[in-house]
């Protein structure tokens, strides 16, 4: 699926000699100093040496990935509009529903109620009851129905009110959604999007604070993406709906009210690509979803202490964007993974395996992984805080890694 990045034409104009011959030695020799000028490694590996200082300033303070010159300009200057993450999701969904009549939404309370997190607000009024369907509380069957409808060519967006409820539909997601394209010998595609909020919230209790990305990650045939900013939320939502493959879009309960300025024009984000949040030198920090913000907070402290972390929001949980990650590892030689998943069998565990398998020679130190504790999330606020990775722990980990 083509990534319709803004300015992709301009990007392609960059010399191809740079793209596949990325050499870390060459990189180190160029004059780099934090704050003054530095090289921007784009997420697709092209190197932009010494961009203008002003833009460099914007790139640090703006937590959104560098897409290309025009995109960076448009998202930081006046054009574009400001909105919250859930509104961005809604915008993406609405635009896709307008664009393609086959797109429909199914979920609990998505229609008349407007969605429990207001992602589908106003859609039922606009598109009618046949396209925005309020389902009874029957995840197993309405996920199955979404898959059945997708087999005929419709493009349903199934919402789990909380990701944890989708465990009830695990059979449908694993056996039908993931496997039908294969077991039918390619006859059916399942262009379904399964989305919902997950992650640890504010004292929601154990059952409502689950991180299902670790359970779904081995299902063959599905793609998983996690959004973290309004920009990528809208982009990923649109890309997921347009994709012919089943996509699970993981949102986070606590990120719905993030505000950001996003472009007015139509754009999508590549489903398989990671986002370069903050280019750096000393250590690669891989993260996704809410932990990105904990990492960025820790990054401020780290910068003050003299470290230069490179922060990558991996976004694509299945498959991993080993290209971007690999380039980063080759540059910094140290990896820290910060995730909200549990330690056992989480995304971090798979990522460690993937990086070790492919980039072991480039590593100066063993990969560190900070994950949530292997416990059901407690209700008490203090305990809940300890369950999840906090910025202070990230700072300590980087210091330890960079010794």
């Amino acid at each position, binding site marked *: 699926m083509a990534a319709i990045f803004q300015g992709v034409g301009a990007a392609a104009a960059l010399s191809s000699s740079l793209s596949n011959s990325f050499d870390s030695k060459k990189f180190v020799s160029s004059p780099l100093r934090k704050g003054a000028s530095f090289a921007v490694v784009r997420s697709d590996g092209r190197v932009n040496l010494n961009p203008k200082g002003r833009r460099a300033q914007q790139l640090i303070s703006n937590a959104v990935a560098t897409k290309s010159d025009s995109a960076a300009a448009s998202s930081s200057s006046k054009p574009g509009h400001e909105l919250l993450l859930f509104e961005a999701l809604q915008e993406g969904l609405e635009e896709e529903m307008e664009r393609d009549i086959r797109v429909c939404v199914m979920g609990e309370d998505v229609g*008349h109620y407007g969605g429990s997190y207001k992602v589908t607000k106003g859609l039922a009024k606009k598109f009618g009851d046949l396209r925005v369907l309020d389902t009874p509380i029957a995840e197993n069957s309405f996920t199955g129905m979404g898959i059945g409808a997708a*087999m*005929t060519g419709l493009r349903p967006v199934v919402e789990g009110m909380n990701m944890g409820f989708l465990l009830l539909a695990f059979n449908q997601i694993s056996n039908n959604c993931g496997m039908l394209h*294969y077991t039918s*010998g390619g006859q059916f595609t399942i262009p379904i999007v399964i989305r919902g909020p997950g992650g640890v919230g504010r004292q929601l209790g154990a059952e409502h604070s689950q991180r299902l990305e670790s359970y779904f990650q081995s299902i063959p045939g599905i793609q998983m993406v996690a959004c973290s900013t309004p920009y990528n939320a809208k982009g990923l939502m649109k890309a997921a709906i347009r994709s012919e493959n089943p996509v699970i879009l993981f949102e986070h309960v606590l990120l719905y009210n993030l505000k950001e300025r996003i472009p007015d024009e139509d754009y999508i984000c590549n489903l398989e690509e990671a986002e370069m949040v903050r280019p750096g030198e000393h250590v690669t920090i891989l993260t996704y979803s809410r932990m990105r913000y904990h990492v960025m907070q820790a990054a401020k402290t780290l910068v003050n202490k003299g470290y230069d972390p490179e922060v990558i929001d991996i976004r694509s949980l299945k498959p991993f964007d080993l290209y971007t990650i690999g380039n980063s590892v080759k540059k910094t030689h140290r990896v820290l993974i910060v995730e909200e998943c549990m330690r056992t069998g989480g995304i971090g565990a798979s990522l460690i395996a993937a990086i070790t398998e492919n980039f072991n020679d480039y590593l100066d130190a063993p990969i560190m992984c900070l994950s949530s504790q292997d416990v059901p999330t407690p209700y008490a606020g203090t305990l809940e805080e300890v369950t999840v990775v906090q910025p202070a722990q990230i700072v300590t980990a980087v210091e330890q890694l960079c010794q």
Partner: protein
Amino acid sequence: MALSRLASSSSRSADLLKPLCSAISLRRPISTDTTPITVETSVPFTSHQCDTPSRSVQTNAKELFTFFRDMALMRRMEIAADSLYKAKLIRGFCHLYDGQEAVAVGMEAAITKKDCIITAYRDHCTFVSRGGTLLEVFAELMGRQAGCSRGKGGSMHFYKKDSNFYGGHGIVGAQVPLGCGLAFAQKYSKDEAVTFALYGDGAANQGQLFEALNISALWDLPAILVCENNHYGMGTAEWRAAKSPAYYKRGDYAPGLKVDGMDAFAVKQACTFAKEHALKNGPIRGKSLSLVEAIKLTSSCSVCCAYMQILEMDTYRYHGHSMSDPGSTYRTRDEITGVRQERDPVERIRKLILSHDLATEKELKDIEKEIRKEVDDAIAQAKENPLPESSELFTNVYAKGLGVESFGADRKEVRAILP
């Protein structure tokens, strides 16, 4: 559809002798004869929350021969699959449908290819009735390239998209929500077609079935749930698994019909009735409803819902649940032979053909010989067919769009070109 021409049928039976005399030596004229014949179903229908269709079914010689041929073909195919399994050419699970052919054949006669069928893992015969070829069946069972799923699905994953056959599912009961999804898509696209979602008496106790039933009734979907009740959920008899084995009543508000599934005409009649009922009541044209309108609409519907229905087919399987189940530990051999003698679907059609003097015993035997040869040829052809290439392992995991090429971690070398 066929119900309106019942009146003049009884007087026609005498006319049948005329074409017969001239054609006794030639099979072809008889098999294309379309003069109506009326047949009575073996037992009357029992209904729940709706009217019963008539016991008299309109048919003709052509249809009788088609039924006979199709069912004999399916029977022969399943028995051949049995031998292939014992010869270790078919591995894994193999669930055979012999004994239940009337359901597949009768249903197909009542509907068009626009209507969708989805069933569980006992799908070989349903696949054939939807237009699948014998080669595709045997090749898939043996895991060859010419199989309907390119050898990657196996016995439980037969699909035929162009004739709206949606499989072929291994997990008990999971196909019913899928089937309701198909019905939803039909309503969404205003297809004027229905979906038949088949499941067994074992699956009837699955929660997702009731969930799907509820949603289908609520949203007025043209879904017809068909319970193929062969009285055994693998090794457990229905009375040991279900508090209420009246599966056609389980819909509560949904109309239900109990049908003799060993009688192809009863099945055909019931399916025709069900489809008509579903389409006559027509789905709500998808207009944007305000909250007030929606509430009014739902409260105005009576307890008996428009057209989501359950058909219970009282049928029987001669083989065990699958090839690894002898089928005799939980039921007596006498029971099996008893059903075979009294209710066998192929025998019923044979008797009908003979009693209406449409063909002789020898002619029917010739048809069966022909079928046997057809099956043997298909098996021979399938055996010749190659196994899938190793690169097929990675095809169809994702639809095209997840990059056309798969690179190594460095993106320097292309590992595979994905289709």
